[in-house]
């Protein structure tokens, strides 16, 4: 190396030599000690210089490298920070969204309709987002004054107090006795401006649900029927009317041998068929379904000559004749209504007695209900008679319709549909079992798909949404075990059908039902925790992560 690139010192040495050519070479002192030392010294200096130079360069290089490294690191950090900031801001936005949707306010029976606007706000606020339905329900987060007021009061007075009494007159004319002024249906406004929370929901849902979660133009089919009175208590009236009908059938049978011969057998046959329905393959139940429909058709033909009755007594709102309806007459055979009633009773009884122990058995019954009530020739003035079934559900499981109460009080239990046997409350276990069966039954009826069917769904999914919203919007202190049990039964085994109907909105609703609702309950009972456990089960079995 040295040879290849001589150091400057050395060069000077050589260079010097020509200047003093031979003199030095031949100088005597050439080999003298002094000279030797001199040269040695010089080379020593040179050595140090070289060494220092090398060290300097090394240091420089190291420094440069270090700089480079720091620079790179800084850039990396910057990138990371930028990313994190982005994420953070996104998350903030997400949280904000979540927070927004979460506050699904209590719905229904709450008197305080925060004036019309909220609905409108919802309407436009998030028209497409999943939070919409939730937000919609969120509107009337009612003051908890209501709890002490018996629900019936809620049903009627509440609504009365609404500020749109003007709309009231529209309500069902049928009910002359109507203490149920309830239905203050803002006549199907295209943009729902619910006046009462209940109404609001219906209105909203009418619009988007028909659409199944996605936005679609207001479904005319839903909107057209006269303003639907959400008045729950019309159901108890229907229920009374049905009872009277059954009594009248017994009386008729006394004078009508034909009717007497047939009626009992038909009734028992329907009950048996409902009991025979099995889970699993739907085709296995076809025979039973056909038998039931056949019996109802036979009743409709009325060859036994049962009296004719006005179906108005058994539906929520008055119906006007419509074009192309198979039955437009103001009357139908009483035997037909009676058997629809028997069928509904059998289904509800099956929920209570069988689905209570094994909720999954409710499903085939729900299929059968939806199939029969949607039969075109069983529609009256173009609409199904499923209100007969709903009236029953309203009696046995009021929490589905927004009623609530405390399990610790007599009146509370009454409102919750806690059954009494000969004047005594049935045992808690039995009550909870019933509620389980009825919750599952409700889901089985309301989450049916009619997409492939020419028939019209008699009880579309928006009713499921509404029922769920009514439960989860209960003020924390008023949450009852009954509600939790019903809610759990509604969700379990039906999460996928619900999500099919509502997509992301359903997931948000499930989060509300299984995470937030139990979290806000003031009393952490076993029923409350079982909702949280259901969330875990869903996560484990389906991978659906809610929390």
């Amino acid at each position, binding site marked *: 190396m040295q040879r290849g690139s001589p150091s400057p010192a050395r060069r000077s040495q050589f260079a010097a030599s020509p200047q003093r050519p031979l003199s030095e070479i031949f100088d005597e002192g050439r080999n003298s000690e002094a000279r030797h030392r001199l040269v040695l010294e010089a080379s020593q200096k040179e050595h140090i210089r070289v060494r220092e130079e090398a060290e300097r360069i090394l240091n420089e290089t190291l420094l440069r490298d270090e700089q480079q490294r720091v620079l790179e690191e800084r850039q990396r950090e910057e990138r990371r920070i930028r990313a994190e900031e982005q994420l953070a801001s996104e998350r903030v936005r997400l949280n904000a969204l979540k927070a927004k949707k979460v506050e699904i306010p209590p719905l229904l029976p709450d008197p305080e309709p925060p004036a019309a606007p909220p609905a409108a706000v919802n309407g436009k606020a998030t028209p497409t987002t999943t939070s919409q339905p939730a937000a919609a329900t969120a509107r009337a987060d009612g003051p908890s004054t209501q709890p002490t007021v018996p629900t*019936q009061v809620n049903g009627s007075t509440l609504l009365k107090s609404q500020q749109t009494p003007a709309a009231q007159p529209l309500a069902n004319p049928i009910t002359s006795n109507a203490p149920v002024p309830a239905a203050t249906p803002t006549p199907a406004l295209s943009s729902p401006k619910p006046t009462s929370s209940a109404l609001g929901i219906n209105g909203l849902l009418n619009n988007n649900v028909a659409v199944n979660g996605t936005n679609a133009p207001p479904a005319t089919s839903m909107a057209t029927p006269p303003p639907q009175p959400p008045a729950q*208590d019309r159901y108890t009236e229907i229920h009374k009317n049905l009872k009277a009908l059954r009594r009248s059938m017994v009386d008729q049978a006394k004078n009508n041998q034909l009717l007497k011969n047939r009626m009992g057998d038909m009734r028992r046959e329907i009950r048996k068929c409902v009991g025979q329905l099995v889970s699993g393959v739907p085709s296995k139940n076809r025979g039973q379904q056909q038998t039931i429909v056949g019996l109802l058709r036979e009743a409709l033909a009325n060859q036994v000559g049962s009296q004719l009755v006005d179906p108005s007594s058994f539906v929520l709102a008055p119906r006007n004749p419509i074009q192309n309806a198979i039955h437009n007459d103001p009357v139908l055979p009483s035997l037909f209504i009676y058997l629809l009633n028997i069928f509904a009773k059998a289904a509800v009884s099956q929920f209570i007695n069988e689905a209570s122990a094994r909720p999954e058995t409710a499903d085939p019954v729900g299929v059968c209900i939806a199939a029969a009530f949607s039969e075109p020739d069983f529609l009256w003035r173009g609409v199904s008679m499923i209100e007969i079934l709903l009236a029953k559900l309203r009696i046995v499981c009021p929490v589905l319709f927004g009623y609530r109460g405390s399990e610790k009080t007599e009146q509370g239990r009454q409102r919750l549909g806690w059954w009494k046997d000969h004047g005594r409350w049935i045992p808690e276990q039995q009550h909870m079992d019933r509620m389980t069966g009825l919750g599952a039954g409700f889901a089985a009826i309301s989450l049916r798909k009619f997409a492939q069917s020419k028939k019209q769904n008699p009880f579309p999914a928006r009713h499921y949404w509404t029922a769920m919203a009514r439960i989860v919007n209960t003020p924390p202190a008023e949450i009852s075990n009954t509600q939790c049990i019903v809610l759990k039964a509604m969700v379990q085994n039906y999460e996928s059908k619900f999500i099919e109907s509502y997509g992301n909105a359903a997931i948000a609703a499930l989060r509300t039902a299984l995470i937030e609702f139990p979290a806000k309950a003031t009393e952490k009972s076993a029923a409350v925790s079982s909702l949280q456990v259901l969330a875990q089960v869903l996560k484990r079995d389906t991978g659906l992560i809610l929390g």
Partner: protein
Amino acid sequence: MADLASRITKPDETPAAAAATENAVDDPTEGSNSKGIIESSYDVEVKLADLQNDTDSPLYSVNSFEELGLPKAINEGLLAMNFKKPSKIQEKALPLMISNPPTNMIAQSQSGTGKTAAFVLTVLARVDFSQPQQPQALLLAPSRELARQIQGVIMTVGQFCENLIVEAAIPGSISRELGVRASVVVGTPGTVMDLIRRRQFDVSQLKVLVIDEADNMLDQQGLGEQCVRVKGMLPKTIQILLFSATFPEKVHNFARKFAPNANEIKLRQQELTVKGISQMYMDCPDEIQKYEILCKLYGLMTVGSSVIFVRTRESANEIQRRMEADGHKVSALHGAFEGQNRDALLDDFRAGRSKVLITTNVLARGIDVSSVSMVINYDIPMKGPGDREPDHETYLHRIGRTGRFGRVGVSISFVYDKKSFDALSQIANFYGIDLIQLSPDDWDATEKKVQDVIKSSRAKPDYAPNALGN
């Protein structure tokens, strides 16, 4: 249950009452009584050396599963199964069984009151899940069906326990090469004994031995002997739990030797007829018409699943044929089917793919399908040489297939001649039951009667919930 249908139609009760109280504010003072109002009570005698009759002692009674201090995972399993509160037998027995040092237990309680869950919880509470393949608990049952059922319950209750392995030691289910590799083993005594002898079942670390249907297991010659032998092969320190719906006195004495120094929980004999079950009999004109009458029963009330007990395979097959023609989905289970076929038939029934189970006596004991709401004694259970004596214990176990865990159930026994009538009368006398007569002549009237019976059986004062402590 049918009555439920009719009660549903009596709406005015609730709404009317609600209306009446329209302006009333809920009276919070109700709260003080409400607890008593709700609770139905099974009177359980607790016999303890130091705590005789003190059933209310907070030390020995718990109000929720949480208070038992069970591990969180187990508690969550219970919640997922909709178990909210312990039943009486669970409330009384569990604290005794899971306390330390482990003490033996002999427990008798009527059908459908939660015995299985009680011992399953004990087993799960004792298992160390960090050793998933080391056998730590052994449960013995008299039949493969029952063993599989118990296995299913353990896995359901333990669904949130990580590393829980439960194996059924029944013929054909344990690998010959590997032997038993589970922390919990449920089996029939014969198979378990074979496995231990072949050294395919390491019993050295077993902590709990449970014998379900203990009266049956200890009483029968073969089974009882096998149980004793199995016990002889187990560690001496093992905790022994014996459970049954019935404990005849001589079996009881034997049980005390089998499980020395045990705590005992026992129901008095006359309370054993399952109270929630409406018991009726159908007066059939002759044997032939029984088939047709049977089919008619299903229209009288709301039926979930049902079990029909018959004496012979032939009538089982004939009934199956007739009922299928009438639209029912039927499983017929009897000795003609072997092991895994029986499993499959029973699985169909459990899963609700079939809703009628026709069976000879195989099933009388312990099988729990919660949605069974009707049990039919198509033939009255008999025993002894030439089937001369009525078999009341079997009757009790049979009707115990319905009315599980406080639910409502119905049993209908068919009589058609003097012999069957006398036999049923004797059974009714033995337990002091009022059997209600039904007749196939006027179905409208019979339907009404059935509905009334179901209603009134629940309204009996001793069945209706009592106000506790009043």
